[in-house]
């Protein structure tokens, strides 16, 4: 059974997913960071596949993408780093990446490789739903990969229902009209949107991401959902870290305390 499904069967509250960019800050940091995230007590690992033109990302993740690429990261390199990672990491692992590098690799080869390595799911922010349904749904299912779509405060209820119907794994709720990046606090308007979606009683669990950075925003987001996703704030922690393991542990502990 897919590890994402198992996770949400056992835990419906305060699920913490951590995003980081593969190959950042140093090329070979990918697997050590995964181990540190697991050891620190997070629930899901989201590995960002770096891309030259990440249009849904703010400055922090843009920079981590650029640096990772300069370090020599690529999808092929990432897959070679992930060879055998399941001996060290047992958390659900999701790959998040823009479509272009993946279609250059070849979608079917990509899916097959993900399954072989033990990846559980995919988040492809610029893959629109109808294209997914037409071209890729069967492949994802064939290779046992769960697919996560994003929704935003602008997404209509009708579309949220459609997305819910075609998702398996979890739904990624973008917390505001925004690209990625940590902001201060969560506004009442955002809470109203969280509540509105909460009351829709979707079949998939919901994780809230973008702008979640600390214990307070994590707790607030989690009170309206199954948990939250931290990206930019985590990238900032590892960017200047001299001791990844210790800093990651301290940061994640401070969020879930």
């Amino acid at each position, binding site marked *: 059974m897919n590890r994402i499904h198992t996770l949400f069967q056992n835990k419906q509250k305060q699920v913490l997913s951590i995003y980081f960019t593969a190959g950042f800050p140093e090329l070979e940091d990918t697997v050590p960071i995964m181990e540190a995230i697991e050891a620190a007590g997070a629930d899901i690992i989201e590995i960002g596949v770096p891309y030259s033109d990440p249009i849904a990302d703010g400055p922090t993740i843009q920079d981590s993408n650029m640096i990772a690429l300069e370090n020599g990261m690529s999808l092929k390199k990432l897959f070679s780093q992930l060879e055998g990672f399941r001996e060290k990491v047992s958390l659900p692992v999701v790959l998040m990446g823009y479509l272009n590098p993946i279609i250059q690799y070849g979608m079917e080869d990509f899916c097959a490789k993900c399954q072989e390595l033990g990846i559980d799911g995919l988040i492809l922010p610029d893959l629109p739903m109808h294209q997914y349904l037409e071209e890729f749904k069967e492949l994802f299912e064939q290779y046992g990969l769960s697919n996560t*779509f994003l929704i935003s405060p*602008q997404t209509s209820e009708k579309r949220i229902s459609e997305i819910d119907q075609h998702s398996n794994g979890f739904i990624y709720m973008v917390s505001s009209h925004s690209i990625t990046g940590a902001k201060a606090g969560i506004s009442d308007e955002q809470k109203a949107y969280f509540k509105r979606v909460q009351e829709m009683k979707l079949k998939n669990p919901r994780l809230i991401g973008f702008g979640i950075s600390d214990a307070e925003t994590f707790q607030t987001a989690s009170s309206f959902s199954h948990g939250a996703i931290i990206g930019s704030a985590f990238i900032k922690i590892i960017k200047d870290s001299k001791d990844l393991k210790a800093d990651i542990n301290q940061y994640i502990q401070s969020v879930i305390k």
Partner: protein
Amino acid sequence: MIRVDEKGFYGKFGGAYIPEMLHPNIEELRENYEQIISTEEFKTEFQSLLKDFVGRPTPLYLATRLSEKYGAKIYLKREDLCHTGAHKVNNTVGQIILAKKLGKKRIIAETGAGQHGVATATVCALMGMECTVYMGALDIQRQKPNVERMKILGAKVVPATSGSQTLKDATNEAMRQWINNPVDTHYIIGSVVGPHPYPEMVAKFQSVISEEIKTQLKEKEGRENPDLVIACVGGGSNAAGAFYHYYNVPEVRLIAAEAAGLGISSGKSAATTALGTMGILHGSKTLLMQTEDGQVVEPHSISAGLDYPGIGPVHAHLFDIGRGEFVAVEDEDAMKAGIELSRLEGIIPAIETSHAIHALNMIEYKKDDIIVINLSGRGDKDLDTYIKWGGY
């Protein structure tokens, strides 16, 4: 038939590969634009602004000395005489009226050469709308006069500092800012790129170019169809406009001039059809200069307006099915062609346009062929580049 299908594809190219956050914006446009632009009210306002504000129809000018030199009958479609100095304004006039009808309050745009930025700032001033233009930090340096023009017109110019700091990055930044301001803001894309319905919408607004060519050529030559139409292609909006009513007239050859930069194999080029493969950039599937790993390659061209690693999906399709003939013109040849046109016809062209002029040397044609070159813009904005280059 060359036309966009329901899902926004031209053959294999096009579509709307966008983050979900932009889905409502794109849907709003897609659902409304055709209906809005087909109303009499829209058409009347668009036509009257094109006439009295932009100065259309632009002349179709028989370039006698150029014709003599090249041994064909060469007409220049004078988009350089449009208000603000390039074809870009045809599109911004159309989109600003549309934005108003959609109830938008703010406009954002990307720009490369600054021509689209100026054209956007201009129509925003005209309509009293707030305007922010994203421009690559490198382009801000090499297109100084246009930056100042935008500011004089009341627009805010924001540098895009990521990546190659050119048009691609400015477009990324504009898309990000649209995600951040989805409700009251309309994004005026400057070329036939981006997610559906932008490529077709921009082409429609630019199609006035070939519509006029047909009428004007009929008056001058007794026929609507030239033998060849030549245009430069950055994203491809002036070319799409000049080709539009000829897409499905096979006897008219469509010649697209891309920027080869320092040479196709120099590593410093923007010749997308020569170097590109199928990929996804800025929301559409198209030909794209990229690494084997799917990272977008930083292009190079001496002309900021052609310095883009992709082309509009319609052009990728024209290339794919062999309907368009694509040539790649190097920096140096383009500069010389600019000087040549200046000396032969008294017209200093934009450096983008100079690529289309040089294409005359790269294609075969017959002695009495009628050739229309789309003179997409004037060279005022490029004086710095001409001066630095110095070969005159």
